[in-house]
């Protein structure tokens, strides 16, 4: 019983895959993903080419567009770096969104209630608060995972909703700005609690955080003992036990750091861009971050690149609203690209050959 479908071709397994081939496969997958999504645009009677150019134009076509793309890249890249750390140990932390919200919450606490502190104390304090709150939020699913092997995928995902509604409670209730015409917003952060921006763009200095975290993580994973323990534990828990590594401790540490990094992203967003809390502070950065981490194969430097591309897609999506396309088109694009990239993985390990007759 053979696959007649392939005619005189057949799929063979290979054991090697060059970097060039991997790159080629990734690019091809993304292009196919875009074309596939374009098909649906075509069905609705609109011109996909117009859509592509609209997105390109909005995100790369002007200095403003480019700067907005960078603004979106910052939270995406930081969240994704956090998520990728957990993924490396095969811990499926789907909770970056919630950890982002809790990080923003922690940072906002100091901005709102200790508003007299000078910048040099305020910003590090907010960063630390974001780091700790995000980390603690990720520890909640990590503890049952570490000690009783409770599935972290579901528990970390569900905690996103808890974080989201905690934020809603704050901005509708105790933290609502009394002079805000009853809008669900906190009052604006003091000047000392905002991260400075470049010139008259909205790009904050938080972009340096992206670079620092990415570089540190690169060296952590590649050269450090702890990074090595994470890779071994991710490949086989039994091998980790065999080498005397503490799996339980590493689950807790990795999940904490993963959440803490997403928490930093939350801090950077409220302190660098929004300057206040509101009900929705993220258009799903924490979820897109998962996609980015997978597309970048968990490589910290690729994550920054892919985040830039996804940022562009997001900016393009915002601009679509003004030209008659629903902005959710962009979600469809993302989904379509991920689908093709994951399917393309197969070709890294297999190749198509002509049958010898």
């Amino acid at each position, binding site marked *: *019983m053979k696959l007649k479908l392939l005619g005189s071709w057949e799929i*063979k*397994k290979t*054991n*090697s895959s060059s970097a060039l081939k991997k790159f080629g496969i990734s690019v091809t997958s993304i292009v196919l993903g875009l074309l596939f999504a374009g098909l649906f645009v075509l069905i609705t009677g609109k011109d996909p080419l117009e859509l592509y150019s609209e997105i390109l134009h909005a995100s790369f076509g002007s200095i403003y567009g480019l700067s907005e793309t960078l603004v979106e890249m910052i939270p995406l890249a930081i969240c994704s770096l956090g998520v990728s750390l957990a993924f490396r140990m095969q811990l499926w932390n789907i909770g970056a969104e919630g950890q982002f919200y809790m990080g923003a919450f922690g940072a906002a606490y100091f901005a709102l209630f200790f508003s007299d502190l000078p910048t040099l104390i305020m910003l590090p304090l907010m960063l630390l608060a974001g780091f700790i709150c995000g980390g603690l939020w990720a520890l909640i699913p990590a503890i049952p995972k570490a000690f009783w092997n409770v599935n972290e995928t579901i528990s970390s995902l569900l905690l996103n909703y808890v974080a989201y509604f905690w934020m809603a409670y704050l901005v509708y209730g105790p933290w609502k700005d009394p002079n805000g015409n009853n809008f669900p917003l906190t009052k604006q952060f003091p000047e000392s609690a905002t991260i400075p921006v470049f010139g008259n763009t909205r790009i904050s200095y938080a972009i340096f955080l992206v670079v620092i975290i990415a570089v540190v993580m690169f060296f952590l994973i590649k*050269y*450090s*003992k*702890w990074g*090595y323990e994470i*890779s*071994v534990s*991710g*490949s*086989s828990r*039994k*091998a*980790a*036990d*065999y*080498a*005397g590594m503490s799996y339980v401790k590493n689950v807790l540490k990795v999940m904490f750091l993963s959440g803490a990094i997403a928490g930093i992203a939350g801090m950077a967003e409220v302190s660098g861009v929004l300057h206040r809390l509101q009900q929705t502070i993220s258009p799903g950065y924490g979820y897109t971050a998962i996609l980015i981490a997978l597309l970048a194969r968990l490589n910290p430097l690729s994550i920054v690149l892919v985040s830039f591309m996804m940022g562009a897609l997001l900016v393009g999506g915002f601009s679509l609203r003004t030209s008659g396309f629903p902005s959710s088109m962009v979600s469809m694009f993302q989904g379509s690209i991920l689908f093709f990239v994951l399917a393309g993985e197969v070709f890294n390990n297999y190749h198509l050959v002509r049958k010898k007759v």
Partner: protein
Amino acid sequence: MGNTPMVEMRNISKEFPGILANDQVSFDVKSGEIHALLGENGAGKSTLMSVLTGLYHPDGGQIYIEGKKTEFSSPKDAVNCGIGMVHQHFKLVQPFTVAENIMLSIKGLKQIYNLKEIEQQIIKQSEAFGLSIDPKAKIWQLSVGEQQRVEIIKLLLLGAQVLILDEPTAVLTPQEANALFKTLLKMIESGKSVILISHKMNEVLENTDRITVLRDGKSIGTVDTKNTNEKELAKMMVGRNIADQLIKKSSRKQDKIFSLDNVSALGNNGLLKLKSISLDIYSGEILGIAGVDGNGQKELAEVVAGMRSVKMGSLAFCGKDYTKSGRKKRMNLGISYVPEDRMTTGLAPDLNAYENMALNSYCSYRGAFIRWDKVKKDTDRLIQAFDVRLASKANPVKMMSGGNIQKLLLAREIDSAPLLIVAVYPMRGLDIGATDYVKRLLIEQSEKGKAVLLISEDLEDLLSMTDRIIVMHGGEIMGVVNPSETTREEIGLMMAGKRKVDLHEA
């Protein structure tokens, strides 16, 4: 009529990506014979039998059943032609009874079935062939040998004329193996045929009528058992003369390296798996542990290596108590461990050879970073010294072959300069060449004054390599024997649960 073979396979070929598993193999079985299929791991025995049982469709060649050309499109067709197979891993539902399990495999069962009738048939078959079994017993209550009987009865009730047994004695004590061969004799007397897949030359020579040897997917030849000998078979299997028997001189010294005192430990399922084990290991000796798989040997190794905690009792290394110490501490003491599960315990499958070589030394670097340049240099040296063949050192180790994986693992463990090497089934799954290499390596280490705890299922290996053999059954030590004074039968009885003291009183 009598000359028409029961089953004839002509020029069977089967290709898998990258390898030709069967290359024009011809093979036949007459009725009333036991025909052995002998070959090393990966020689193509299992593939050939999977073709015969309809699991694989051959790329070329024909199958004739009683002279009639037949084509199987599914395992069902093979069953209908009277071909049945007992796999190495039994396909039984543990909480069900014997009768219920057998019922499951009977095709065309009515909605309302008669369990009593099935039970009676089971009893009838089991009496006819000397396969005593209680049809009402639950599978989990049965020993491995009894479970194997259930599989055989299942095939008989399905009307099998040709029974294929895949390495049937791997899980049996010598006595159980003898009983199995008696049963097989009864079967061929009644006109059935038996195909025995094996890589053990002794049992094949003692119990079969003809032997077909496979090597690298090709049939090397079929010989009459009475006209051949071990040497000829080995040469056919390996393709060259194998080196002379190992000679092991005892190099046991007086210093006690490691001792267990009344140690009990739990198994993975939370039940007591080791019961009051006391033993000493001396430097320079190879201490063998014999037993049927699953009688606590693996847990014993894990306790010694520090991967399983001790429930009661104490253990000492060089005279000092280390009962509470974990794996990392034991590693630093100089206890290296070659686990049964090499691919996912001894190695991290997704990491490459370099990264895996750092598994027991990565902590020795000062500071937070690993000196990969040093790891690479060490790895290159070991790969050379231990003759590990790699396509690329940057590939994940899961792509390596079994023999090379074991060499890589042993290289790392021996290079860590241990005082005690715990090796669990270190030769399992290796071909003759690699097996020979591993054996020599372990003996060499003991001659250098290291202590070796060797857990093996192969009595020949234990008898030829060790200084002392401890026999385990049900998590307890049945006795200690001296390999030069004991017999296979004595060890076999102890493996089945008889204590050494009882044996000698009787």
